[in-house]
């Protein structure tokens, strides 16, 4: 029976402007009004059009400034000075109700001061005097003072929480540091960057801190934050040691994305505002008066957006869809693997869930921010086919005869399961969905031969099905399981490195468009209409190795964001919008084995729907 929706269609929402698919990516910095007094290391609070900064210094001498200025969106005006002038002070709140705490002027201070719009009042002190702390909080009655330089440590991990009356020590951050950024509230906070030079990022859930994905640029001493940001929507900008940076990065709750740079490179600047409307104020070197205003376009009126939503933009008379635009993806380096790896195997479900095998046979699990040791596989062989992630994976074949062994992983231990019908090594690198009860193995090599044989897996046994059209070893693969897969590249003896691509529909392989660059021993990720192939080499494998990523939309390959360093026998996997590749052989030093880990991220955007 036909459904009403199929006969009459369905309503499409009409919007006056695009949704905020990726608001931060539309942001730019423009110059704002200059401070009356140049300074670095000031505290800040408020918004882009009602901002306030206090303290800081201009020459390194003592005493530090107590100077206090307000911004109205175009000019700064001088206000009543702090009671105790200091630099590297903490600040939260608004232009009419701001809290200042800590700081340095001849000594570390634990003083707390409250601004009520007309004067400063001294309140209860912090337990630990400090400067260079991160400030978390949006109102003057609830804040965290995090880390900083204290008498006992230049990179303290001590955290105190303000309840409007007094400070109480709460759980410490995992990575003690100073000169770093903060965002969010006392219930859901975020800190990032700082010194020791890092992009370390930690999330606060109201009780404890968790390490999450680091910033893309890891030398972020003196980074600034939009002080009124949240733990899932934040902006970090500037910083750096020994050289300063103009880099701006936005945080979406799980990853940092590079945005347009500040106009003027600087560190120890002050941030004010939100991730969509922020101020960058002062900083050094040299110590400056410059203000810049970060504005996103369109304004984030429509913060609610869903992947795949269709709407009508009445302003531009266009139907649009919110989607991932895969070729816009980029690779960002992340925490190095504990052990270099090349020809073993690796796979992942996303850029925050992966498992790689080390040469000694102990697995390395990736959670998006750090590596940990996993289980030890029973058959420690090269070039096995694998799919799944850090808590559930399957690995097949590889190594020396009989090459038939298959093992599943449950996040703790490997267990041998039914063997392949045809033992082989040289199997594809990439991923094939998340289910370890469904999948397939194809191609590879046996002594003196390359193979075309394909076998499907139903969770308990392997079944021989139709062969690849072109036998090959060392290819890349992608897909979602036994009914949908792609095979690309690899080593075909008669042609050496191959650009051939084939797709699998559950019953047969079909040849489709070639890769732009023939190669083998790269790594695949994604599905069959959103697949990627990264790294690899020509055959024989001579440097330079491949940095290229190509993206397959189901019919054609397009070159997209490169890796920073070429490599082959890199492994990995994931989805088309979130993947990982790691390890491999490096060109320099010759034969060097890599611990490098690169994560692939694609942002959502709004695309106009066209018909032909």
């Amino acid at each position, binding site marked *: 029976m036909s459904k009403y929706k199929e006969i009459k269609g369905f309503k499409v929402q009409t919007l006056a402007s695009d949704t905020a698919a990726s608001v931060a990516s539309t942001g*730019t*910095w*423009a*110059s*704002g*009004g*200059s401070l009356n007094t140049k300074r670095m290391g000031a505290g800040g609070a408020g918004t882009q059009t009602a901002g306030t900064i206090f303290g800081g210094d201009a*020459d*390194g*001498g*003592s005493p530090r400034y107590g100077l206090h200025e307000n911004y109205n969106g*175009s*000019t700064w005006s001088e206000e009543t000075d702090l009671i105790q002038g200091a*630099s*590297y002070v903490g600040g939260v709140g608004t232009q009419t109700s701001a809290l200042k705490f800590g700081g*340095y002027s001849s000594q570390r201070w634990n003083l707390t001061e409250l601004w009520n719009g007309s004067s400063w009042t001294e309140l209860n002190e912090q337990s630990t005097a400090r*400067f260079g702390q991160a400030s978390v909080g949006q109102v003057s009655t609830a804040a965290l003072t995090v880390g900083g*330089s204290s008498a006992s440590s*230049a990179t303290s991990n001590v955290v105190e929480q303000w309840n409007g009356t007094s400070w109480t020590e709460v759980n410490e951050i995992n990575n003690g540091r100073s000169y770093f950024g903060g965002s969010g509230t006392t219930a859901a906070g975020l800190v990032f960057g700082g*010194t020791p030079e890092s992009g370390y990022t930690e999330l606060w859930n109201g009780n404890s801190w968790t390490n999450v994905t680091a910033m893309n640029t890891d030398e972020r*001493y*003196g980074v600034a934050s939009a002080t009124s940001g949240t733990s899932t929507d934040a902006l970090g900008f500037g910083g750096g*040691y*020994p*050289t300063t940076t*103009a880099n701006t990065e936005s945080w979406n709750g799980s990853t940092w994305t590079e945005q*347009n*740079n500040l*106009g*003027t*490179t600087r*560190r120890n600047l002050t941030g004010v505002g939100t991730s969509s409307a922020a101020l960058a104020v002062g900083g*050094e*070197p*040299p110590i400056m008066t*410059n*203000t810049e205003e970060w*504005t996103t*376009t369109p304004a984030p009126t429509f913060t609610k957006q869903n992947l795949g939503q269709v709407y009508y933009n009445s302003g531009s008379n266009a139907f649009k869809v919110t989607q991932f635009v895969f070729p816009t993806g980029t690779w960002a380096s992340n925490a190095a693997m504990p052990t270099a790896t090349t020809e073993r195997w690796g796979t992942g479900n996303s850029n925050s869930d992966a498992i790689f095998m080390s040469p000694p046979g102990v697995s390395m699990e990736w959670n998006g921010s750090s590596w940990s040791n996993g289980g030890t596989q029973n058959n420690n062989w090269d070039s096995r086919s694998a799919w799944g992630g850090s808590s559930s994976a399957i690995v097949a074949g590889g190594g020396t005869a009989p090459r038939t062994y298959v093992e599943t992983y449950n996040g703790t231990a490997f267990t041998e399961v039914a063997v392949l019908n045809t033992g082989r090594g040289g199997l594809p690198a990439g991923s094939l969905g998340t289910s370890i009860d469904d999948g397939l193995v194809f191609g590879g090599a046996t002594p003196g031969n390359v193979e075309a044989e394909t076998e499907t897996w139903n969770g308990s046994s392997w079944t021989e099905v139709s062969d690849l059209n072109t036998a090959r070893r060392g290819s890349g693969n992608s897909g979602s399981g036994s009914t949908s897969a792609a095979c690309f590249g690899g080593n075909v003896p008669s042609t050496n490195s191959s650009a051939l691509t084939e797709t699998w529909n559950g019953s047969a392989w079909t040849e489709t468009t070639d890769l732009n660059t023939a190669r083998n021993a790269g790594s695949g990720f994604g599905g069959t209409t959103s697949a990627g192939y990264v790294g690899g080499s020509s055959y024989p494998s001579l440097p330079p190795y491949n940095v290229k990523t190509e993206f397959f939309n189901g019919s054609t390959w397009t070159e997209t964001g490169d890796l920073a360093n070429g490599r082959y026998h890199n492994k990995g996997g994931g989805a088309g919008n979130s993947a990982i590749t790691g390890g491999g052989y490096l060109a320099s030093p010759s034969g060097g084995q890599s611990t490098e880990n690169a994560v692939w991220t694609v942002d959502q955007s709004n695309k106009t729907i066209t018909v032909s």
Partner: protein
Amino acid sequence: MAYKYCTATNWGKNFFTHEERKQFHLSGHPGDVWVVGDNLYGDQWISKVSGAIKSKSEAQAIVTAEIEAAQAAYDALSAEEQAEKSRPAIYNLP
């Protein structure tokens, strides 16, 4: 990417706008040195801010001198004051 180099004093609001940041590369450096994308929009901005064109080596010399001055100021601080800051580092313009 090709660049032009100039010096210009940042007067604050609208010295560079959001629209201009989308049209050409722009980065500010010590000594009021600006590295500007070499296109029509970049040329228009240099004209707008009355920028004084410099060669790359001239611009680099200005930046280096500014940072050296900042280094000297840092070196003159007491050890206690130095511990609170970081010594500026000389770098190369793009």
